[in-house]
């Protein structure tokens, strides 16, 4: 049947090409259904508890998506006429930001003070024309004394200030809304930057982060995909030395990508920053398939076979191994479905589908193309001998090789426990990205960008006005401020104390919690009636006044510390105020939890991938023993890779959580090829040394080539400024390279030293099967 299928392709190449092109076009038409979601929420499934908690809190209090405009005067002084004037003007301009509902700055801060029996509530800087030395001094004194402002809107040194724009995105076309906000804010920032060249302006905040997800996806699509094409062209030119072979491979790659994305479109997938690199991955894996077939064909041609026969034979000996390696790769990617992160599941499914498509296209479209194209006999002959002498060296030095390689393996793998799951959304963008630079600047000079919102529920209407509740909030606020990682706490207890003082003629001794419930309620009522549009308390109070929201800003700490903070808060409430319920929510917390949860579910996924792939290898190799031995070279590279990672970075983000199962599916290919040849030789009656020599001679070079192709492909991915993609690419490339080393050093030495028993030679009936499988 196989031969019949191959002959059909070779005899009717045009028909085959036409049908393939129709199928690919039909699938490709689905690509128009693809749309892009560049928004951090894509990382969380609809049932994600932290996302739901966050959404609920956003509905009870107002949404707090924001843009932070950070101003850093070169003079180092915010409290100067020029700087304050810029803050004032930018604050005014910021109100024009699309979807903005609130703008907070040191100039529009609603300063309260007593004046006889009046409560004055007024912008800290009402009119820049008022700016003179005494006004500036007054603003400085008020701002630096105000806990709402200090270390949030102005640094304690008074050298950096921030304008915070809160937006309520309607979320009808979220990408466009984010782009609109970003475009506007960038435009005013650029305008004022030219007017005030001595004050640096940086842009950070959730909206800018979402914008960066889009921009980096765009950047990847515009640089990595063409970069990958370029890398492939170079590799093919070097490896195949055939223009037409290169052309045929390119056709296969392009068809694979079109069909993959189109099929994904039909299936209702959307694109996101992680899945934008599906084409790069599919390309990488498709090239490997084509290289095997074309290399075999060239070999046959050099042996003097005629072209059709050369193609037929190349297909015949490669079709099963390529199928097996594609299937193991697909299994590796399919186990992404264990992930808790929807775009990673999508990535796995899309690449798995793409890998199988690439397999089909390289055994159907590629031979048809090769048949039609005027392929010439390659002149240069392959350099032979290197692999053989390398084999001799390994065989001769097998004991030291095994010893040293085992030591290196154990030594490197021992570092694995140093890795820790760490998902900090800001750090998904590397230092090349402007948003990351702005966030780092903000972290170093003003406050961090990790926040947690805590809703404290008093359990009864208007309970927030009770002195005992305010006391708990105040104690909690003090406790938070005592934590080392905490930069700022936005708490209503400060407002209550300040109002109490203001309404007692600004007497500092009254800077304390109002004496009774009614007093607190009436102060708050009066204050609320004095506030202007957009600066109300609705972002801190629910409508029933039964709960308040406290926002804690922290240094850019890791996910473990974020979760630890949440736990510590729960413990604090259990010990100090069990009568009130506290809930935590924020994007920071969402990323903290998803990293942990995803890690444990991917551990299950990886184990299942390992079992499935091992079973597949046992079947493919038709040997329990070799199947079990293969587990070593399949698993060791990932262990070493993560050991390397512990030394290199030690932060495991969502992208890295899938690397083990992905790389497993890929590195297994080397093992399959090597062990298949080894077994073939053993079955032919050779001893382990000769079988190793045979395996090196027949697949050594092919393994070099595919490793080179795969490593190059993943190194292209590693160039992404989006760390989820970049780190995944880098670590996978390292693991693939290590896998080759393991297969070339550890595995042969291990086989020679352990696999001494002679193989029972099977009957001739199995010969053809063995030949097919082992080629």
């Amino acid at each position, binding site marked *: 049947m196989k031969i019949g299928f191959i002959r059909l392709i070779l005899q009717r190449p045009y028909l085959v090409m036409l049908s393939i092109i129709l199928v690919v076009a039909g699938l490709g038409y689905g690509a128009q259904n693809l749309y892009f979601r560049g928004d951090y929420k894509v990382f969380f499934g609809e049932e994600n508890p932290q996302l739901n908690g966050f959404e609920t809190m956003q509905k009870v209090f107002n949404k707090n998506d924001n843009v932070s405009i950070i101003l850093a005067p070169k003079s180092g002084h915010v409290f100067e006429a020029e700087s304050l004037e810029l803050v004032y003007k930018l604050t005014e301009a910021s109100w024009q930001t699309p979807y903005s509902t609130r703008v907070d700055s040191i100039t529009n801060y609603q300063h309260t003070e007593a004046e006889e029996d009046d409560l004055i509530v007024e912008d800290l800087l009402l009119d820049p024309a008022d700016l003179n030395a005494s006004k500036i001094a007054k603003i400085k004194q008020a701002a630096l004394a105000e806990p709402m402002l200090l270390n949030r809107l102005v640094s304690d040194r008074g050298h950096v200030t921030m304008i915070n724009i809160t937006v309520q995105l309607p979320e009808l076309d979220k990408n466009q809304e984010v782009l609109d906000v970003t475009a506007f804010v960038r435009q005013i920032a650029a305008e004022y930057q030219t007017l005030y060249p001595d004050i640096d302006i940086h842009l950070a905040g959730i909206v800018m982060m979402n914008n960066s997800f889009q921009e980096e996806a765009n950047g990847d699509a515009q640089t990595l995909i063409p970069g990958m094409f370029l890398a492939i062209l170079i590799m093919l030119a070097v490896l195949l030395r055939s223009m037409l072979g290169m052309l045929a491979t390119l056709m296969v790659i392009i068809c694979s990508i079109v069909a993959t994305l189109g099929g994904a479109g039909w299936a209702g997938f959307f694109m996101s920053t992680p899945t934008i690199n599906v084409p790069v991955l599919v390309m990488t894996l498709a090239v490997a398939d084509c290289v095997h077939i074309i290399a075999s064909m060239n070999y046959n041609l050099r042996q003097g076979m005629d072209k059709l026969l050369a193609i037929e034979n190349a297909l015949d000996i490669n079709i099963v191994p390529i199928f097996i390696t594609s299937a193991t790769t697909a299994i590796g990617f399919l186990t992404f479905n264990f992930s808790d992160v929807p775009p990673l599941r999508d990535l796995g499914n899309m690449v798995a589908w793409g890998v199988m498509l690439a397999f089909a296209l390289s055994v159907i479209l590629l031979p048809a193309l090769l048949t039609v194209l005027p392929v010439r006999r390659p002149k240069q002959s392959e350099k032979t001998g290197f692999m053989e002498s390398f084999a001799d060296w390994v065989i001769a030095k097998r004991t030291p090789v095994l010893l040293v390689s085992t030591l290196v393996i154990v030594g490197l793998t021992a570092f694995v426990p140093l890795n820790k799951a760490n998902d900090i959304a800001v750090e998904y963008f590397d230092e090349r990205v402007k948003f990351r630079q702005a966030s780092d600047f903000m972290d170093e000079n003003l406050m961090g960008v990790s926040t947690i919102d805590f809703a404290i529920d008093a359990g009864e209407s208007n309970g927030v006005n009770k002195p005992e509740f305010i006391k708990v909030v105040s104690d909690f606020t003090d406790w938070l401020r005592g934590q080392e990682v905490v930069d700022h706490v936005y708490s209503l207890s400060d407002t209550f104390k300040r109002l109490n003082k203001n309404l007692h003629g600004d007497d500092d001794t009254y800077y304390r919690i109002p004496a009774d419930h009614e007093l607190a309620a009436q102060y708050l009522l*009066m204050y609320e*009636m004095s506030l202007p549009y957009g600066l109300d308390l609705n972002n801190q109070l629910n409508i029933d006044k039964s709960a308040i929201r406290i926002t804690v800003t922290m240094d850019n700490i890791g996910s473990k510390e974020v979760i630890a903070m949440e736990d510590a808060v729960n413990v604090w409430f259990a010990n100090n105020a069990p009568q009130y319920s506290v809930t935590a929510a924020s994007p920071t917390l969402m990323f903290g939890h998803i990293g942990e949860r995803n890690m444990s579910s991917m551990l299950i996924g990886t184990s299942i991938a390992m079992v499935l792939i091992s079973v597949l290898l046992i079947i493919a190799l038709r040997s329990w023993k070799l199947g079990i031995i293969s587990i070593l070279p399949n698993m060791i590279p990932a262990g070493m890779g993560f050991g390397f990672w512990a030394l290199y970075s030690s932060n495991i983000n969502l992208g890295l959580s899938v690397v083990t199962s992905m790389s497993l599916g890929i590195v297994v290919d080397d093992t399959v090829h090597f062990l298949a040849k080894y077994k073939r030789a053993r079955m032919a009656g050779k001893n382990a040394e000769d079988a190793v020599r045979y395996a090196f001679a027949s697949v050594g070079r092919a393994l070099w080539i595919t490793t080179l192709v795969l490593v190059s492909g993943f190194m292209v991915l590693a160039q992404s400024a989006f760390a989820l993609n970049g780190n995944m690419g880098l670590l996978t490339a390292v693991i693939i390279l290590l896998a080759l080393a393991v297969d070339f050093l550890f595995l042969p030495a291990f086989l020679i030293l352990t696999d001494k028993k002679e193989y029972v030679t099977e009957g001739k009936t199995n010969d053809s099967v063995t030949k097919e499988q082992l080629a």
Partner: protein
Amino acid sequence: MTQSLKNNLLKTIVLGSLIATVPLTALAQTAQEKGLAIAKERKLRDTGWGSSEQNMLMILRNAQGEESEREMRSKNLEVSNDGDKGLTVFDKPFDVKGTAFLSFSHINKPDDQWLYLPALKRVKRIASRNKSGPFMGSEFAYEDLSSFEIAKYTFTHLRDEACPEQPDLQCFVLESIPTDKYSGYTKQIAWIDQSDYRVQKVDYFDRKKSLLKTLISSDFKLYKKKYWRPLTMTVTNHQTGKSTVLKTSEIKFDVGLTDKDFNKNTLKRIR
């Protein structure tokens, strides 16, 4: 469609709109005059009511569907040649019970506002230009509830159309731009029915000229055979998904209130 056909169509449209603009520009003056005339008629039809008392219930809802209530009683006194005077006593939430809010609206200067805080036993003047913030945490701003005065806006009559909530009635659509720079709005668009000059609906636009919220007035009732009062007013905030329903009941006219009843010195005695 061919390119030339497209071009022709485009020319027709451009030319057509040029011709259409000619009478519009000629009307521009009158659109403002007409707007002013409608506003004056509205004010005129609501003049002479003297004084009134009513109970008010506010029901606040947030985007999560939670509800909260506020209750208050208010007294109003019509003042000729200036804004009206108002006195509101809060009954619910219970922790602000007895808090009394006195306001003197003015036509050409910021309103005077005082608050009596029973817990502090003091009258405090609210010395703020701000009147655009939420009233009692609701979607109403103080400026939405204060008396309507011609001088607070510039008007433009936009068009006539069927009233949005009552299609059997014909409405004037009137644009009002606040003259006070401390207003929370850049403009309001009101639908005023042509038969009785009742404000049926108002769209409020924020500083960046986006639609912020919509007020729908309903359950109109006629008092003293002349004065219409909506018993239900619903404001929906389009940006936050919050809403507030204001229900007025037990409206009484001719209750004999005078200036003496609206005095900051007598605020403390109000209960």
